[in-house]
């Protein structure tokens, strides 16, 4: 069945979001007073200017898997008693880029097996995601090479494509269809011309990438062989061990859990982001580290480009380019891919 495709005039966007924001919180890209563009919770749609022209600096990861969250409280007064803390907030995400939605779909998979992660799904359930196709990729983007953009082919509730004065709207999932039905008067039918124009834009977008990153080529090399020792050493020497790559990465989901005592027998169990590039990630109690500092980046790059390919059939890098921006040692995943391909 061909999905429903309609047109939303740009003038009608604000009105639609006002309606959609009534029974859900609304999150969309906004540039704040310091010039940072972030997915931001919007309480006053009429007093807020959305910024759909820039890539949000952080992905959606933090909304479902916060940097730090209390997942349980504990009480040891009479035996061990744990009380799960769940945070449920029905949310509509608008203006999400395809890389970021691909990352959410990946997280859904990671957090559902082998056991369902209740803390994650409490936040994730009851969310609607409306994406905005990228007609002009940003400077460090390479989602064309990771198969996660610049247009979504599946997984979205609604996907919008900017056609100038109007958006072409495609419904991909039931929740999207429901929006089109419930608020039909905001939309008008799409013509064949609109559909052709969207296709033209997607064709051109593919040619507008400024970076050429040979992800598939690298994955093939990694699948069949070892990486030259020198590459690991050279990259690790320049890694500043800041964890920035893992923190901004929309698919890095490693976490640590610690207990914070608040009273002698009560406290909170806190989950926080971790990074496999940290030496403490694998260092054992006696001080031995099975992965020495020369190979600090090995876990991360091989996980993304080799192990996940073996396990899920595709790399778990979504090509958003955020680690390229954040890495001040210039040893982000694109540097690694280049080194592997050149070698």
């Amino acid at each position, binding site marked *: 069945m061909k999905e429903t495709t309609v047109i939303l005039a740009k003038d009608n966007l604000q009105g639609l979001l006002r309606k959609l924001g009534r029974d859900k919180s609304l999150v969309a890209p906004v540039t704040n007073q310091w010039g940072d563009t972030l997915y931001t919770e919007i309480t006053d749609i009429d007093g807020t200017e959305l910024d759909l022209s820039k890539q949000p600096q952080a992905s959606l990861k933090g909304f479902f898997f916060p940097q730090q969250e209390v997942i349980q409280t504990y009480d040891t007064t009479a035996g061990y008693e744990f009380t799960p803390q769940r945070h449920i907030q029905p949310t509509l995400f608008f203006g999400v880029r395809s890389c970021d939605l691909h990352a959410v779909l990946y997280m859904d998979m990671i957090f559902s097996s082998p056991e369902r992660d209740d803390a994650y799904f409490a936040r994730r359930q009851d969310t609607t995601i409306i994406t905005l196709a990228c007609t002009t990729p940003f400077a460090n983007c390479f989602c064309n090479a990771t198969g996660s953009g610049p247009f979504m082919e599946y997984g979205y509730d609604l996907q919008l494509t900017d056609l100038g004065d109007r958006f072409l709207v495609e419904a991909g999932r039931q929740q999207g269809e429901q929006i089109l039905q419930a608020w039909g008067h905001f939309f008008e039918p799409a013509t064949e011309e609109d559909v052709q124009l969207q296709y033209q834009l997607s064709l051109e977008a593919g040619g507008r990438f400024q970076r050429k990153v040979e992800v598939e080529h690298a994955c093939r090399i990694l699948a069949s062989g070892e990486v030259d020792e020198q590459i690991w050493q050279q990259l690790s020497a320049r890694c*500043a*061990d800041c964890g920035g790559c893992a923190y901004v990465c929309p698919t890095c989901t490693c976490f*640590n859990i610690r207990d914070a005592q608040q009273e002698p027998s009560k406290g909170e169990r806190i989950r926080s982001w971790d990074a496999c590039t940290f030496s*403490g990630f694998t260092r054992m109690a006696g001080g031995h580290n099975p992965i020495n500092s020369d190979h600090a980046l090995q876990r991360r790059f091989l996980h993304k480009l080799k192990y996940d390919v073996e396990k899920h059939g595709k790399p778990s890098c979504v090509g958003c380019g955020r680690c390229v921006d954040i890495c*001040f040692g210039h040893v982000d995943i694109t540097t690694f891919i280049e080194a592997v391909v050149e070698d």
Partner: protein
Amino acid sequence: MAGLATAFGSGAMTNSINELEDVDVVIVSGSNTTEAHPQIARRILAAVDRGAKLIVIDPRRTALAQEAHVHLALRPGTDIALLNGMMRIILDEGLADDHFIEMRTENFIALRDQLFKIDLDEIAAITGVDRQLMHTAACLYARAYKSTFCYCLGITQHICGTNNVQTIANMAMLTGNVEKENAGVDPLRGQNNVQGACDMAALPACLPGYQSLADMQIRQKFKQCWGVDVPLTPGRTVLDMTHSGHNGTLRGMFVMGENPILSDPDQTKVQATLEGLDFLAVSDIFLTETAQLAHVVFPAASFAEKSGTVTNSERRVQYMHQVIEPIGECKPDSTIIAELAERMGYEMYYESMAEVMEEIALLIPIYGGMHHDRLRSSWGLQWPCPNRDHPGTPFLHKHYFSGGKGHFTPAQHQEPFEPPGDAFPLTLITGRIYHHYHTGTMTRRCASLNRESDKALLQINPVDATTSAIRNGDLVELTSRRGTIRLWAQISEDIRPGQVYTTFHFSEAPVNLLTTGAADPIAKCPEFKVCAVKVARVES
């Protein structure tokens, strides 16, 4: 700071941080830059990637030393000898910049005469640095058009710290590597606002903006603004205070955001002084070891809970925006000071932080054009910035040094205060590591950082480890004439035989129980980088 002020008339980084990316040759001395200043190290490495030559002067094989073209692993405390040797080579090779020396400097003859008395073999013996390596480094530095000299606490934390800095200034002037873009002398500041603290005269002997305490006109200016006479006598230096002992000369102290119990040398003396005070007040964001001794503790607001400016290494004044309301009862430092002053009978009322900045701009010429409205939405301004229209100053001393002509002050090698000997055969070097900040009051409370580095390690060469039957990971006892601490051995070739290295981040192993209070006579900066110790394995 005193050393650079004598030579150039102003004590701060002469270049901007970004200029480091475009140097031809960079010497980094006494700085573990990748760990202590990663954002500066990245620019040095970017320059290396571009083809610049990197010379590292450090007793230890730091991560930056491993990337260096030349690593001069000198014996700790022999910087003057090494640089004098290099300058002699520069003279002998005819690489001195005679024109620069004539146009922009004075007192060169004194330096030249001293350098001609030097015997390079003797220098090699003192420093432990090979003559050929010294030659290579000297020629690289002197031949390049854009050479920069970065240094940090490995230069200043010696009894001859001021002379060390003057010698660096001598070498820069000798080769004409100052007063231009991408070339200069760059002290790397240790904290986000230590430059600002100095600028505001958190120093004993001057008024804010390095203005003379003795100048009548300047005194009058401050009197008019503050309504009180500024004392004529200089204040006391930190060590002079915290080492004054229980002798009654110092009766009360107010310590803000500092933890001298762990950060000052010779802990026993510091503790005796603080415990002997009639009154100690401490203002900090956590209950530090020093705060635990206080009669009154003020909970201070953290950086995120207040607005104001900080001034960094490259003299850049940056505005910090408040993002959250102060938590609990804590208050910004400025409020704590103002309320205290008011209760002491001196009203300090300001409408806003912007009004405080306005007063700074009025009283301090180098801050004359720094106003919050200009700083709030920009990346900041670099002093000197004398008026509202001034764009700030990326590199210092264009056309002339601020003190007139650059002044050569020859210096001679001076042995460290406490050389190793029979009873204490090893030299202890102290420093910092990447994951922790100073005495760990903040970073040790962060689970991830503390996991990365959770205990004090003693870096020791395999030769010394074997002598003392120490294995990697053993608990060892480190003893100096002043005390003993326990920490874990980390055997490494990155430290030379006869030297050991550790940090001062861990209250469980307070290394400043061991260090000496000996200090540079001018800057009063203590010799944290050299003291004599012995090490023994703790039998389990």
